C-alpha cells in the first residue's frame, strides 16, 4: 500500500545519499553579507563631510571614538536613516520582483507588474495637484502612493478573476497591463491639467531617498518585514508552482491560494516601498536575475539572496546618486537604470560565454 515508506527504510540502511538539493550555500550567504556591510559602511562614511571608516566601525562596536559631535550627528541623523531606508526599499523591491517572476513564471515580471507603479503615480499626482502650493503635507504623498498602489493591484486581481472565477497567470498579467494603461492615462491627464506641479510629480516618479529620515524607516519597516517573512516562507512553494498549476495541484499545493498570498505579500511590500521612495525602477528585475545567473534558479536561493543583494545594491546606487554630481543629487531611479542595465548585460554575456548552467 505505501511502497515508498518501505523503500525509504531500505535506502536508509544503506549509506546516506550524497545528494545536495538546491539551497543556500555558505559562500553566497557570506558574499551577500559582505556586500551589505561594505555598502552600509560606504554609505555612512562617504559624503561632503568625510568621516573615518575605522572610527565609524569603532562607534558601531561601542568603542570610544575620535568623532566630533557634528560628525556623530551627521552619521546618525542624516546618513544612517538614509542607508537603512535604502536597504529596506532595495531588499523589498528585489524580493518582490523575484517572487512575481516566480509566481507568474515570467522573467520580465517586476514589482510594478500589476499596476502598483501606475496606481501610486496617480495617487501622488492627484495629491500634489490638489495641494495649494504643489507641496502636500509630509503624510499626503506617501499615503496616496500606498493606497493607489494597493488599489491598482486589487483592481487588477478583481478584473482578472471576473471572467469565470479562475485566475490564470496570463489573465492576471493582461489585466495588469490594462489597469496600468488606464491609470497612466488618468495620471497624464491630471498632470497636464496642472502643469505648474509637473516638476514635483516628476521628481517623485523618478524616486528618491533624499528626504529620508527615521520617520520613513518607521513607516516602511513593519510592512517590509511582514512581506519578507511571508515571501521567504513560500520559497519552496514557488519552486513547486514553477511546474505549472495542474502539476502543483497533483503535488498537493493549492496553487490559486498560494499565488494569491504571494501576490498580496509582494504587493504590500512594494506599495510600502513606493510610498516612501517613489518609483525606483529596475531593482526588482536586475537583482533577482543576477542572483539567478550566479547562484542558481531555485527560489530557495533566489529569494533570500535577492533580499540581501537588493539592499546592498540600492545602498550603493544611492551613494552614487548623491556623490556623482555633488552637491546636486541625481534621481536614484536614473542611477539604478543607468548603471544597472550595462552591469546586467555584462552578467548575462559572461554567463552565456561560460556556458554556465546555474
Amino acid at each position, binding site marked *: 500500500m505505501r*511502497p515508498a515508506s518501505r523503500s525509504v527504510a531500505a535506502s536508509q540502511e544503506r549509506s546516506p545519499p550524497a545528494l545536495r538539493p538546491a539551497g543556500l550555500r555558505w559562500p553566497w550567504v557570506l558574499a551577500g553579507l559582505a556586500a551589505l556591510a561594505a555598502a552600509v559602511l560606504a554609505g555612512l562614511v562617504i559624503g561632503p563631510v568625510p568621516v573615518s571608516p575605522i572610527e565609524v566601525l569603532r562607534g558601531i562596536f561601542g568603542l570610544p571614538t575620535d568623532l566630533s559631535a557634528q560628525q556623530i550627528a551627521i552619521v546618525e541623523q542624516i546618513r544612517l536613516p538614509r542607508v537603512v531606508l535604502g536597504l529596506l526599499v532595495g531588499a523589498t523591491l528585489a524580493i518582490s520582483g523575484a517572487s512575481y517572476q516566480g509566481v507568474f513564471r515570467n522573467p520580465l515580471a517586476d514589482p510594478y507588474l500589476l499596476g502598483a507603479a501606475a496606481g501610486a503615480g496617480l495617487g501622488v499626482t492627484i495629491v500634489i495637484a490638489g495641494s495649494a502650493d504643489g507641496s502636500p503635507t509630509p503624510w499626503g504623498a506617501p499615503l496616496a502612493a500606498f493606497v493607489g498602489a494597493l488599489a491598482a493591484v486589487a483592481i487588477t486581481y478583481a478584473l482578472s478573476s471576473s471572467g469565470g472565477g479562475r485566475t490564470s497567470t496570463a489573465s492576471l498579467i493582461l489585466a495588469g497591463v490594462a489597469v496600468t494603461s488606464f491609470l497612466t492615462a488618468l495620471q497624464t491627464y491630471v498632470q497636464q491639467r496642472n502643469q505648474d506641479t509637473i516638476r514635483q510629480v516628476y521628481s517623485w516618479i523618478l524616486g528618491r531617498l533624499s528626504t529620508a529620515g527615521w520617520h520613513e524607516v518607521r513607516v516602511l519597516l513593519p510592512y517590509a518585514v511582514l512581506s519578507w517573512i511571508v515571501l521567504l516562507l513560500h520559497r519552496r*512553494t514557488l519552486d513547486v508552482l514553477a511546474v505549472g498549476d495542474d502539476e502543483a*495541484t*497533483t503535488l498537493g499545493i493549492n496553487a490559486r491560494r498560494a499565488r494569491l498570498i504571494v501576490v498580496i505579500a509582494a504587493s504590500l511590500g512594494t506599495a510600502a516601498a513606493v510610498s516612501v521612495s517613489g518609483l525606483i525602477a529596475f531593482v526588482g528585475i536586475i537583482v533577482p536575475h543576477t542572483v539567478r545567473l550566479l547562484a542558481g534558479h531555485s527560489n530557495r536561493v533566489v529569494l533570500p539572496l535577492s533580499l540581501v543583494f537588493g539592499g546592498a545594491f540600492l545602498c550603493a546606487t544611492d551613494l552614487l546618486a548623491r556623490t556623482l554630481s555633488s552637491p546636486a543629487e541625481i534621481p536614484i531611479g536614473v542611477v539604478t537604470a543607468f548603471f544597472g542595465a550595462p552591469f546586467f548585460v555584462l552578467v548575462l554575456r559572461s554567463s552565456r560565454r561560460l556556458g554556465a548552467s546555474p
Partner: protein
Amino acid sequence: MIGCTGVTVSLGKQVILNDISLQVERGQWLSIVGPNGAGKSTLLRYIAGLVPGSGELRLDGRPAAALPRRQRARLLALVPQSPIIPEAARVLDYVLLGRTPHIGPLGVEGPHDLAAVHDALSHLELLDFADRLVGTLSGGERQRVLIARALAQGAPIVLLDEPTTALDVGHQQQVLELVDRLRREHGLTVVTTMHDLTLAGQYAERLVLIDGGRIVVDGPATEVLTEENLALYYGARVRIIHDGGRPAVLPLRQRHAKD
C-alpha cells in the same frame, strides 16, 4: 483502488464525459484508449482531481472529494504528457518536488525525503544524472525523470498521460517495461491513456475504450482490440495479429478497386 460512479464532466454546454462508471483494482494496469477527442485525457484529469465533474470518485475506498489536497497527492501521482520543465532545474531538484505532499506547506525536505529521492533515482538508474539539467536530457531520459518524480511521491496510484508520445519505438518499450517493473515491485495501480493501440495491448492488463465520452468496450486487450471495434469506433481498417496472447494492431491501407 479507483472507483468512478456515474461521472459526468461538462465544459460549458459540451458534455465531455457522460455517465462513466469504472472500477480499477489494486495493482492493475488499465489503459484508456479511444479516438481523438473521445475524452481519454479528461477522464485521467478527472481522476487526478484537475477537472470538476458530477458523480462519485473513490480513491483507496475513500471519497476523493473529502480527501485533503495533500493526502490525495500522497495517494495519487500524475505523469503529465507535456510537463512544464522549470528553467535550469536539475534532475535532483525536480524529482525532489515529488516529495511536496510529504513536506509541510511552508517546510523544507528532510533526510527522509532525500532518501526517498535517492531510492527513486537509483530505481530508474538516474543517480548519475542527478546534477544534470532536466531541459538538456533526451526524450527517453526525461520521461524516466518524470516517472522518478511520481515514484518519489510514494503514491500507490500512478496516472500516466500518453507516456510514450514523442519517443522512438525502443524508448517506448523501455519506458513501458520500466512502468511495468515498478508496478510489480511496488504494487502500484497504473492508469495510462494510450494513443498507440499495439503498445496498449502489449502492456495493459485491461483496456477501456472510450468514444463520445462513454465507455463503449471494457475488458482484456484481446476483447477490446478487435477488427470490428476499431472499424466501428476509430473508422480504421486494421488487421489484428496475435502474438503470445497479446494483440498487435496492423493498420492496412485502403485498397482501390483497380489494385
